């Protein structure tokens, strides 16, 4: 079968699965509905991987393009909807699907036995979420991207508030929903402006029409509005406030997906829209884009790392670590080189496995001890050496230890960033050392009982980790999937860095992704784009040294923190920053507006 025909299946199969589970879930026993969910998710993964293989091995640079329903454009303009299986988009769809399979397997034994007649609801929601994310990764149409953006959003809000019996998940889901929807509407306003200018909705068509004129205020406004929504999804500072709240309260399997791929899809959206729509002479100038995204990326990375170090609620700790890494991904995109894109793609791949594995380990702690508080758990998990080992390995991989995929991605991205500004590699090392160090510190205290028991401090804003376990009763013995899934995810992350084929495929994906003209020719004219030949990303001595350096730094930081707990100095210094995380929806919306203004100020010099 023509692999372009597989593209709609990647979106349709999970939707079909969700419909089947909703319709039949009332009558099915739990095991059958779980198996059905896994089967549909796995079938989607197979379709996405087939597209990916096709995109990777065809002639010079061609990749599958499908005009849904046969509505092809006539003379460069059209009303049809296009799905594009370029290697990066198809790769992301495959990553989403594989992670969804892992999450569904993880949740076999994870949730409390659901109430009778509702066995299908959780896997059905996860499948809708998967369809939204896959569609967003594959679409070549701006309005369609908005629809998939909202589809994955709605599924994610519902999943965040899945445990409706407790007040905290409801608060987190509400903040998540309001802020993300507002961002989505800003995106829609921007899309409308672009339609007003060009009369087109496809990435490639809009880009071509824009290049007929010069950049002006309308293009700038459209760029800022479209990017605002995507950056909200990506949780860039100051759009990030919803993320820690949502991650702290969502069920653990959902956190694995939110942190593992959904946030990264926001970064992907920014990169995709810029390269296909705004990168030409009629769009926004490269220096303006680089400046705007570098500023936001550096702020995000630093703030995320600082907040991550301060947390004692393990899920919030991991959530802020995701914020910090998103900053690094944004920097990788901001440098506007193929190397930056392929490095970031590798980093995202490696990070997804590691972060999902870490969340999975925290889920085990939550279900066994009914808390995810670092201070509460001090030394209590000595009896779980395997989980402790996985947690430690995850922390080391988060620092960028070679040969993990996160390490290779970090090395490639930081080298690409170093060509733009010499101090950026230092930022990469610092941020990954601090976030990895925070995880290692928590791991040392919880699984080894190292150092002194930390004191609780009074009077500071604090979210402690008193949570209800998600299983019916506390776990006695740890079920196999709860350990096997994180182990498999870490192994996959290791494979990303250790198998050279993955890196070279990503190098090619980055080259194709940044080839604006090639994308437009492939989509609109069905002409094969010749991929620019670049040396594939691989381990370089500097990258290995910097990866080892950040790992050593992280171990030193963690040891220091365990030996000499809780100096009041840094905590007092960061207290004002922590107070911003107020849990108040109005504050978050105000910051969103401020962020949009900042984005405008940073990009204004890009127009003439």
């Amino acid at each position, binding site marked *: 079968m023509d692999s372009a025909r597989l593209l709609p299946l990647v979106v349709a199969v999970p939707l079909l699965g969700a419909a089947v589970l909703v319709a039949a879930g009332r009558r099915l026993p739990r095991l059958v509905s779980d198996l059905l969910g896994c089967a549909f998710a796995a079938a989607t993964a197979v379709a996405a991987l087939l597209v990916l293989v096709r995109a990777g091995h065809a002639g010079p640079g061609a990749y599958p393009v499908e005009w849904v329903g046969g509505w092809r454009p006539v003379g460069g303009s059209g009303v049809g909807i296009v799905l594009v299986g370029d290697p990066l988009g198809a790769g992301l769809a495959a990553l989403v699907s594989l992670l969804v399979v892992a999450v569904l397997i993880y949740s076999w034994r994870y949730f409390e036995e659901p109430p009778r007649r509702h066995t299908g609801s959780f896997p059905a929601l996860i499948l809708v979420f998967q369809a939204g994310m896959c569609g967003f990764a594959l679409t070549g149409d701006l309005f369609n991207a908005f629809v998939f953006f909202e589809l994955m959003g709605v599924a994610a809000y519902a999943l965040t508030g899945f445990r*409706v019996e407790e007040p*905290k998940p*409801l*608060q987190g889901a509400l903040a998540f*929903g309001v802020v993300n929807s507002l961002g989505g509407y800003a995106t829609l306003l921007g899309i409308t*402006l672009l*339609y007003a200018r060009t009369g087109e909705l496809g990435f490639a068509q809009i880009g071509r029409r824009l290049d007929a004129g010069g950049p002006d205020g309308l293009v700038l406004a459209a760029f800022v509005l479209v990017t605002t929504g995507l950056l909200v999804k990506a949780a860039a500072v100051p759009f990030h406030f919803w993320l820690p709240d949502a991650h702290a309260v969502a069920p653990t399997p959902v956190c694995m997906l939110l942190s593992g791929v959904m946030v990264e899809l926001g970064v992907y959206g920014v990169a995709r829209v810029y390269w296909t729509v705004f990168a030409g002479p009629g769009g926004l100038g490269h220096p303006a884009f680089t400046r705007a995204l570098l500023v936001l990326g550096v702020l995000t990375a630093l703030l995320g790392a600082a907040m991550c170090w301060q*947390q004692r609620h393990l899920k919030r700790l991991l959530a802020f670590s995701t914020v910090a890494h998103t900053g690094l991904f944004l920097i990788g995109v901001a440098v506007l080189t193929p190397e930056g894109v392929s490095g970031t793609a590798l980093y995202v791949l490696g990070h997804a496995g590691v972060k999902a594995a870490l969340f999975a380990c925290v889920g085990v702690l939550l279900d066994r001890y009914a808390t995810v508080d670092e201070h509460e758990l001090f030394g209590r998990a000595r009896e779980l050496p395997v989980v402790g080992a996985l947690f430690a390995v995850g922390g080391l991989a988060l620092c960028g230890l070679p040969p993990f995929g996160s390490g290779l991605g970090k090395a490639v991205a930081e080298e690409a960033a170093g060509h733009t500004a010499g101090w950026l590699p230092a930022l990469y090392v610092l941020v990954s050392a601090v976030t990895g160090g925070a995880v290692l510190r928590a791991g040392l205290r919880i699984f080894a009982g190292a150092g002194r028991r930390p004191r609780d401090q009074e009077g500071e804003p604090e979210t402690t980790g008193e949570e209800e376990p998600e299983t019916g009763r506390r776990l006695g013995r740890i079920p196999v999937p709860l350990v096997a899934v994180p182990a498999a995810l870490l192994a996959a992350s290791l494979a990303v860095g250790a198998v050279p084929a993955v890196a070279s495929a990503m190098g090619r994906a980055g080259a194709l992704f940044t080839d604006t003209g090639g994308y437009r020719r492939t989509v609109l004219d069905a002409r094969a784009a010749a991929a620019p030949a670049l040396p594939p990303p691989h381990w370089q001595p500097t990258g290995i040294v910097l990866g080892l350096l950040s790992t050593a730094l992280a171990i030193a930081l963690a040891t220091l923190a365990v030996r000499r707990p809780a100096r009041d100095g840094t905590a007092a210094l960061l207290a004002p920053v922590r107070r911003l995380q107020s849990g108040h*929806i109005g504050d978050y919306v105000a910051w969103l*507006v401020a962020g949009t203004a900042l984005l405008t100020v940073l990009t204004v010099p890009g127009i003439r």
Partner: protein
Amino acid sequence: MTVLPYLVAGWIFLIGVYGLVTSRDLIHAVGCLAVTQSSTYVLLLAVGYRHGGTAPVFADTPTDSRVVDPVVQALALTDIVVGATVTALLLALVVQLRKRHGTVDPDALSELKG
């Protein structure tokens, strides 16, 4: 062409955002979000409007007659469906929050800090 509809769309968006920022009631906040969204309808319809155009239904008009843009109407419809879903879900969360927590005042929801 007049700029008035565009200014109105911008005004509706900003007034909705203002309401969200200052809201003391979550039901009201979700309403404000819906107000914000209605600015997108106004903008879409303003963009698709053709002076003197009729509805894009060619059953009883000549095929070369001047019509408003049907694409934006399709977009506005999709947008309405998306908005209805989001609003319904958020309102359901608020109702559930009221049941479990006994309040809909965002100032009272302070369990997620720092």
